[in-house]
């Protein structure tokens, strides 16, 4: 697809628009596209012709360079008997574009079935897309892959043949339709979905459940009706059901009906029409239970667009001259991810375990892998060892930044035999990408690995473009989002002659299924050249996924004929769309805009403004165009809008606070503040003092300044964090009490040693008779309890306790001279460290 668009880009210039936005947006991409776009240099491609039944060409030389291009790009790839040469040969079925007797005659025949301006429109491509002789198989996914491959061949030819002219995407007026009423699917499964679910669970569960023998996504046929509902939403189309009269089966657009009615997909009764009618009736029951949502009549809105109404916007431009395996995951269903590199043999990957297709092209690996056969994977060995260099390229969105280990990463892309034998692996170790490559400077497991720097955190759990390259001179390199990470290979490049050709290519895991990587892979490619920094930047800039230009008609609002607000839109992932870089364009150069005010643009979906993601709501500009400049960028921003019904059915429109003379300005009055939340609950009216409060309180009681007492200060600093840090009395621990006591001992020690007069004339170096203990006890009690504070313990009770303590510390009633000081410190600490001090 991208190759085709490159061809278009570099081909005939339709030059219908000479618009400024092309300079600012598309032109940049185009220049990149034409600087070496998809397959732009076929002579570099060593893949060459493949096919087991292809004879050596001995006919006349190509008469022109264009014929030579045709030969390299198309003819050599299709003339084998397995592909087109079996029929479209000399004397065979017309046209004979795959004849092997005369390249010039084949060229003449090919010209009747190709469109080099729009390769995707080539009959050679569309015929294959219709299912004609696809060598990959007959199911829809295989057919699409074949068509994609042929399109790539034609695009390569076109690119070479038509040269590097700048691409102009021709914007043509889309069908004009009003934003209509739309039946929006509720968040939870409605009762009327039950009939549909019953059909699915009864007739589709043998494949479309996670525990089926050969599980096929989406798993909408499981027992869980809510899960089924979420997965069925994108398969339902309700707006065609008017409900006043019965809707004919032929009008149904729901995927569930179409698959039965038109594609005869696993009909259960033997009669697909009756099965389709049964499903149609069930869908109609649901549709008629849901009222349509009308756009608010007060809104100033554009005409409506759906994604299929858009103009393909992929600019092409990927550098794929040396690609030897390519996975774009466009199939969207089934268990095979096709290699669309066009280089045979295709290494088609089989999806197993918990893997699912992602909207907008991609696969999500939850607990599974996508693996090719060892025989097909041998292509990698053969083509890479031939050049001695290669690159692994991927667009990935890691599910997390916790998976993987150093030198044993979670496997993103691996060509290996198990946990200890590989040719290469691109993996994840938390925030790092790791690149293991087997060479004569590493072991058979590719160790030592090249890992990105821990501090850089190059790997993020978001969509990233990562490329690792290897060649013998530069060794291994890692590029993330087009930028070289500057991580140096710990070993010399060496050579890769010892690669093993019996390994298998695997994505999302090790072949032994024990090194799971979780995330989304939206593109994977193997090149047998080390891509240059410019080529990598080019592929990064091209992006990933299918894009469209949606042209929202605003004639009625601007009073300018053929005036549009255009968005580039793509399906961002399974759950949203990306709307980016809107611009205004007038398709009638004679109808210009003169300072038309545009304010507050919002994106509407299915009859209402999207609630989340309105990144253009603050837009405030004026549109002015002229005959020579018919467009104007409106914003460089993009936004994601939640997917509702699916890319086929969701209908978009734009609304404006003001466009031209039409306005719908919102109210801006500040509302009155609501009452403050007071969510406390009843709890104790008392608490404990906290660390500084405890020390300050002890200081206040004793009169000891901690700042002037280094020993005490040191004690406090040591135990500070063992003291209570919160007042909540219910969190008070025994360890807190121990710290309080130790601090109390410190203060009391200083109080008694310093002889501050607190105790009057008490001599702590002398004996302390029993009847004089009150000279110590009373001042302490007064200081700690305060006087006449009834919430404190009683003086007498406290004094009795303290006296009893003296009894124990001085067992002979009178404290001897050497007992007085330590015993008094103990008594002091007992009350200073008590709840009388602590509780507040």
């Amino acid at each position: 697809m991208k190759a085709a668009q490159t061809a278009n880009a570099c081909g005939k210039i339709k030059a219908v628009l000479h618009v400024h936005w092309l300079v600012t947006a598309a032109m940049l991409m185009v220049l990149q596209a034409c600087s070496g776009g998809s397959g732009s240099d076929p002579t570099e491609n060593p893949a060459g012709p493949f096919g087991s039944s292809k004879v050596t060409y001995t006919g006349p030389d190509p008469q022109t360079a264009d014929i030579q291009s045709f030969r390299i790009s198309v003819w050599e790839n299709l003339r084998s008997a397995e592909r087109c040469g079996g029929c479209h040969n000399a004397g065979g079925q017309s046209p004979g574009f795959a004849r092997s007797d005369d390249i010039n005659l084949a060229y003449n025949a090919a010209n009747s079935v190709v469109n080099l301006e729009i390769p995707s429109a080539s009959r050679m491509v569309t015929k294959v897309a219709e299912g004609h002789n696809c060598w990959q198989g007959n199911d829809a996914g295989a057919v699409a892959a074949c068509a994609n491959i042929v399109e790539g061949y034609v695009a390569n030819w076109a690119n070479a043949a038509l040269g590097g002219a700048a691409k102009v995407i021709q914007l043509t007026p889309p069908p004009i339709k009003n934003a209509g009423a739309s039946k929006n699917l509720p968040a939870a499964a409605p009762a009327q979905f039950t009939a549909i679910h019953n059909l699915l669970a009864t007739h589709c569960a043998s494949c479309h459940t996670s525990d089926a023998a050969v599980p096929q996504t989406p798993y909408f046929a499981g027992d869980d009706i809510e899960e089924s509902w979420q997965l069925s939403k994108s398969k339902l189309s309700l707006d065609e059901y008017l409900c006043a009269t019965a809707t004919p089966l032929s009008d149904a657009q729901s995927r569930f009906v179409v698959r039965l009615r038109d594609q005869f997909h696993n009909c259960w009764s033997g009669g697909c029409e009756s099965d389709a009618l049964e499903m149609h009736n069930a869908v109609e029951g649901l549709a008629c239970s849901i009222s349509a949502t009308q756009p608010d009549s007060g809104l100033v809105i554009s005409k409506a667009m759906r994604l299929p109404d858009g103009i393909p916007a992929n600019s092409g431009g990927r550098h794929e001259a040396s690609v030897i395996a390519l996975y774009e995951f466009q199939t969207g269903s089934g268990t095979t991810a096709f290699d669309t590199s066009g280089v045979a043999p295709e290494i088609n990957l089989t999806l197993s375990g918990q893997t699912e297709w992602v909207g907008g092209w991609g696969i999500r690996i939850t607990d599974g892998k996508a693996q090719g056969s060892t025989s097909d994977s041998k292509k990698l060995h053969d083509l890479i060892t031939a050049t001695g260099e290669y690159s692994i390229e991927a667009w990935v969105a890691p599910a997390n930044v916790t998976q993987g280990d150093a030198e044993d990463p979670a496997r993103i892309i691996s060509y290996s035999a198990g946990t200890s034998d590989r040719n290469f692996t691109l993996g994840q170790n938390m925030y790092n990408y790791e690149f293991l490559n087997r060479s004569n400077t590493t072991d058979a497991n590719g160790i030592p690995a090249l890992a990105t720097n821990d501090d850089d955190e190059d790997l993020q759990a978001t969509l990233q473009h990562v490329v690792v390259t290897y060649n013998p001179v530069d060794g291994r390199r890692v590029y993330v989002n087009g930028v070289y990470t500057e991580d140096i290979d710990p070993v010399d490049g060496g050579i890769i002659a010892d690669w093993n050709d019996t390994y298998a290519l695997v994505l999302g895991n090790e072949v032994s299924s024990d090194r799971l990587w979780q995330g989304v892979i939206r593109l994977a490619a193997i090149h047998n050249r080390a891509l240059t920094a410019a080529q990598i930047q080019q592929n990064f800039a091209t992006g990933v996924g299918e894009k469209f230009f949606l042209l929202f008609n605003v004639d009625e609002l601007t009073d300018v004929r053929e005036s549009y607000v255009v968005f580039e839109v793509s399906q961002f992932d399974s759950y949203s769309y990306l709307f980016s870089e809107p611009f205004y364009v007038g398709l009638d150069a004679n109808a210009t805009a003169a300072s038309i005010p545009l304010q507050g643009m919002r994106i509407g979906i299915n009859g209402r403004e999207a609630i989340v993601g309105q990144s253009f709501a603050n837009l405030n500009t004026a549109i002015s165009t002229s005959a020579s400049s018919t467009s104007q960028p409106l914003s460089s921003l993009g936004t994601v809008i939640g997917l509702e019904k699916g890319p086929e059915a969701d209908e978009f429109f734009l609304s404006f606070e003001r466009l031209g003379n039409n306005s719908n300005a919102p109210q801006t009055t500040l509302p009155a503040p609501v009452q403050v939340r007071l969510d406390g609950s009843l709890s104790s009216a008392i608490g404990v003092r906290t660390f500084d409060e405890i020390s300050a309180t002890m200081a206040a009681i004793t009169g000891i300044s901690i700042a002037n007492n280094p020993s005490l200060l040191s004690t406090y600093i040591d135990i500070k964090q063992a003291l209570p840090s919160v007042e909540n009395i219910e969190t008070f621990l025994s360890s807190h009490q121990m710290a309080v006591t130790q601090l109390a001992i410190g203060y009391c020690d200083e109080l008694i040693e310093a002889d501050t007069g607190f105790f009057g004339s008490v001599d702590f170096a002398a004996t302390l008779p029993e009847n004089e203990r009150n000279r110590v006890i009373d001042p302490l009690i007064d200081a700690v309890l305060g006087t006449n504070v009834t919430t404190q313990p009683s003086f007498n009770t406290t004094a009795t306790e303290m006296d009893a303590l003296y009894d124990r510390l001085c067992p002979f009633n009178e404290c001897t001279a050497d007992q007085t000081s330590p015993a008094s410190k103990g008594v002091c600490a007992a009350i200073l460290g008590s709840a009388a001090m602590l509780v507040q």
Partner: protein
Amino acid sequence: MTKTMHVTATPHWLCDNSHVAGRRARFNSAAAVTLLMCLAICSSATVEAGFREQAKRIHDRIAGVPPSQPVLDAMEDELSNNQPLAAADIAIANPSFYNVTLKNLVTPWTNGDFDAFAPLNDYTATIIGMVRDDADFREILTANTVYVGNLNHTSMAGVPPYSNTNNEHYKAMEINGADLSDAAVLRAEFQSSIIGTPVAATAGVMTTRAAAKAFFIDGTNRAMFRFTLLNHLCNDMEQVKDTTRPSDRIRQDISRSPGGDSRLFLNNCVGCHSGMDPMAQAFAYYDFVNTDDAGTNGFMQYISAVVDPKYHINSANFKQGFVTPDDSWSNYWRSGPNAELLGWDPLLAGGGSGAKSMGQELAHSEAFAQCQVKKVFRAVCLRDASEDDRPDFESMVVNFKSSNYNLKRVFADSALYCKGD
């Protein structure tokens, strides 16, 4: 409290004090008595309070320390003479109100771990000083003010001068026991003079060194906004999450499809970032530069008109995201549910350039005033305010505003409300 009953042995470290070596047994007994007394006293806490008991509690809660006898007498007199604010003012005059209560209230705001044990710093000192000097408390997010120690004071022996690159000045003040209630010890200076920040770039405590070290270091500067919202408007991001705001100012570093699933962005990330990113843009010119590997030393950097590179990191996460061009900010929460929740000042524009005007936007909100009362109420009443407290709580907010946002009034009102029956 009951857990203390289970302690029967004194840990070895309890007796390491050199002055008491050899008397371990005696102090085991002392500790045991301490516990017994603790239990006895706890059981007496239900005694009905008179003026004297109320005065003690008011003092305890405001100053963090018990009153002296004369102070208790004076407070009792004021209460009995129906002069409750005068009683509270006596407690507020105690230096411990500044050196202990305020310091411990503010210190957790100054670091990302809410560590109450963190050393004194310029953020804490500035708020203490502004409260002491009866400043309009809203200016803590706007003022060109920083409080520093007066090195000429006798209590400042050995204290190094203020430094942009370390916190030694304040650490030494704390160890010296510098009295922060004394205007001769702690005095106001201009940030523009002391730190060197341009006047227009000063924004109260947000542009102190301590705040910068905690919230401008590394990252994307969103932390400064989040923690300011949390500490001064009492709402974390979870409470203000609003997915309906325009998403145009969400920077490029925010993935729109984390792990490949855009539902996470649409249902969660956008809720905070749509409002936070246009506000945090006010800090676009700030950074904190470490000057040592340990991360202890470093300085706040402000380069006028130069967006710090941290605002453009991980730009490939979403190329179509917002690219910060300057320090202009917008308050998207003036619409939607947060307009009611936070109560913005209708006299302000809701947008501007730089941290000073953004700080004013926050400080002039209803939530700011309510938050200060909430925090003080919790500190003084030792519990969160509940619905039962609403009438008095709202009166405290009114009094706070009418006192020119004097935080002392909130302490007084809270202590009087929780003085006991």
